[in-house]
């Protein structure tokens, strides 16, 4: 049994570590190009890394910076937003996003999010979906164990403490499961999108014949809704809705 474990761990080390090393090297290479002012190559390297499935705050934040330097403001907004979903309170990313937003054309009144939802989202984003899931499962198992202790012990004080902690952990497990779900939705299935087309007209119906409602420009963050064919309903930050072609934006 021990020998098998050893073989497995060696295999894992051989397979995983070069991969991790290689991606790290690519990341560092991109950073070097960026330092030397070759933002195009840096962006290409990082985009490649991102497209091959690697994903963390630093990568997304750096991509945002590279696009900003290439004056692709909408793309930089997308990547800063994505980075902020991984680390919502990061100071640098928030600052850079605010600068990138000053370079977009549209100004608008934002409807503030409800306090509770805002905190719910922020808590959900504090840890990754997987972390929340692991916490939820651990809490669940410990809670059940304590419940068993409660049921079978004859010592009164122990019984009481076990019961209280068990109930608390059960609630914690449920909450972190919800956080995990919320995190997964925000990070991997976010309804928000950033407009990429320089100018786009929002229409009242999902076709070219729809009444023109508004004109928005690249870099604006909107919320996507229902999709019919090549058209998608979006909601502007000020609450107005309209239909735009699917190709005119990219989801966060």
């Amino acid at each position, binding site marked *: 049994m021990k020998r098998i474990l050893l073989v497995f761990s060696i295999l894992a080390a051989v397979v995983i570590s070069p991969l*991790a090393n290689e991606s790290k090297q690519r990341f*560092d290479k991109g950073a070097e190009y960026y330092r030397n002012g070759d933002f195009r190559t840096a962006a290409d390297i990082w985009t490649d890394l991102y497209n091959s499935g690697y*994903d963390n705050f630093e990568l997304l934040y750096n991509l945002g910076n590279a696009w900003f330097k290439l004056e692709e403001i909408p793309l930089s907004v997308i990547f800063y937003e994505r980075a902020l979903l991984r680390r919502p309170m990061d100071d640098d990313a928030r600052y850079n996003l605010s600068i990138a937003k000053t370079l977009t054309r549209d100004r608008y009144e934002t409807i503030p999010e409800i306090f509770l939802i805002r905190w719910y989202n922020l808590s959900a984003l504090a840890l990754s979906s*997987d972390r929340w899931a692991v916490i939820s499962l651990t809490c669940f198992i410990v809670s059940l164990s304590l419940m068993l202790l409660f049921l079978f012990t004859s010592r009164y004080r122990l019984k009481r403490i076990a019961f209280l902690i068990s109930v608390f952990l059960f609630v914690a497990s449920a909450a972190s499961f919800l956080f995990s779900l919320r995190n997964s939705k925000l990070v991997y299935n976010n309804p928000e999108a950033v407009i990429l087309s320089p100018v786009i007209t929002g229409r009242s119906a999902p076709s070219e014949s729809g009444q023109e409602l508004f004109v928005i420009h690249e870099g604006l963050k909107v919320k996507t809704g229902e999709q019919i064919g090549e058209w998608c309903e979006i909601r502007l930050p000020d609450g107005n809705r309209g239909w735009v072609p699917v190709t005119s934006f990219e989801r966060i």
Partner: protein
Amino acid sequence: MRFIILILFSSPILFARSEAQEIVLRVDYPKVVTVGEQIRLVYTVNTSGGDFESPPFDDFYKLSGPNTSYSSSIRIINNKRTTETSYSYIFYLQATREGKFTIPSAKYSRGGKTYESEPAVIEVIKDGAGRTGAGQGEQRTETGQEAGESDMFVRVLLSKREVFVGEPVVATVKFFTRTDISGFNEIKYPTFNGFLKEEIETPGLTSLERENIDGVVYGTGVFQRFLLYPQRTGEIVVDPVTLTVLLRQRSGISDPFFGDMFQSFTTVPRVLASKPQTIIVKSLPENRPSGFTGAVGSFEIISAIDKDTVAVNDAITYRITLSGKGNFRLADAPGVTFPAGLEVYDPKTTSNVVNSVSGTNGNRTFEYLIIPRSSGDFTIPSVNWSFFDPAANQYKTISTAPARLHVLRGESSATGPQMFTPSAGEEIQYFGSDIRFISTMTGDLSKSGPFALSSRAFYSAYGLSALVFVLVILIRREQVKRNSDKAKLMNRRAGRIAARRLKTAYDYMKRSENEKFYEEVLSSLWGYASNKLNIPLSELSGDKAAEAMKRRGDVTGLSERLLGLTNVCEMVRYAPASPGDDPGKIYERAASLIRDMEEQLD
């Protein structure tokens, strides 16, 4: 070595001698003539005493020659005498047919050496009205004739018709004539609206040159050349040049006796104007680099700092020099971002440019006076300067090298105790905003995704732990149940064991072994109670038994009976002298008690 020195010393002498005796055979001739015209071909050699060999004149008819002429001049400058001699061999030829002909080189040999002249290329054109060359050998039939439009005109010749904004055009004001003129008056150049005009130095017009214009031989002369730098795009019209020519005209009727010989001439002024012309000016391409100020041409840039180590408050000079070719007037000072802490004055600009047909050449220097106000190391960053290169049709950016400056702390000039004055405090200077730098930490770079939520194992783990929970409870319950079954069994067996014990007691009673009798009764009672009530013997006490019995449905005072009986037995056992009950009675009571307990307790 000695050899080289010898050469070095002797060479100036050699050169001087050879220079003095350099024999040159020069040829002068009109480049364009008309058929039938007389050509004067002159070979001149600056020496004498050699043999001249004339070339063959196959394509021309030789009228006369060679006629030699000799001239010699002696100059004495600062008591130094120089003698110049020249021999001329003059031929008069006549062109017989049209075409371009080459007269081969003439040869001149002297002292065993042969010198050759340039071959003469003469273009012969057909022109019935050719009257140039002061009418040599030609009879003029017309008298008192007004010179026509095509006899005399002035033109502005443009080197290019289509240029970029800022790309120079050479405009040549040229005069053409077929008649005699005695002079010029009042040349009026246009203002060249839309252009920046630079004059090119042009030698004064002393003699006319012969040129073939569309088959007609004209005497031509250049008045002035301009460099025109277009300042705006579109079609720009170059306004006409006006010029007053003093024309020599015959006056009166020719003398019947002396012919033309004594003809009198009058000078008539005549105004000529060139035609307006159009230049198409293209705008520069759109992708202008940031440091572009409108310079067009080809440039180089260098920067220099006169001192790289200075004390605080000592002035230094930083120069940026642009050199090359192009519209220098538009070459503004490049934007230099000097580091904070240096006081910089507006640059002094000096230009050193020469206009020529190829454009404006030279350099332009921007001189910045810098006074460092604080010590430390400063770097004046490299300056980017952009221009448009019309030859390559693209923008080019050139840059200077960054200059480093080390500023030392100024020596305190004050003697004696120095007063310390606190600095007035300065606001931090902000220059602009930029995004913050990238993160260089790799962090936990791994492939990610909502693995847990999308994996079956995750949910199975919940199910599994719940299942284990339920299972543990079930097993425990089963165990409890089995334990309670064991108690029941003991309960059932309790009567029998007690009966057996009582039987032993009965035997002791028969044998009158009272002590053992009581002991046996007691142990049977307690053993029965222990089994029946499911309380271990070690934990059993009277109170506990009573309590347990009450729980199990003792309503008729069984516990009191048990306690009473055990008390009696114990009393007899430990105090044998006490008047105990009759053992038979005790036995009866014990047996009935066990019977009742068996019946009433469940």
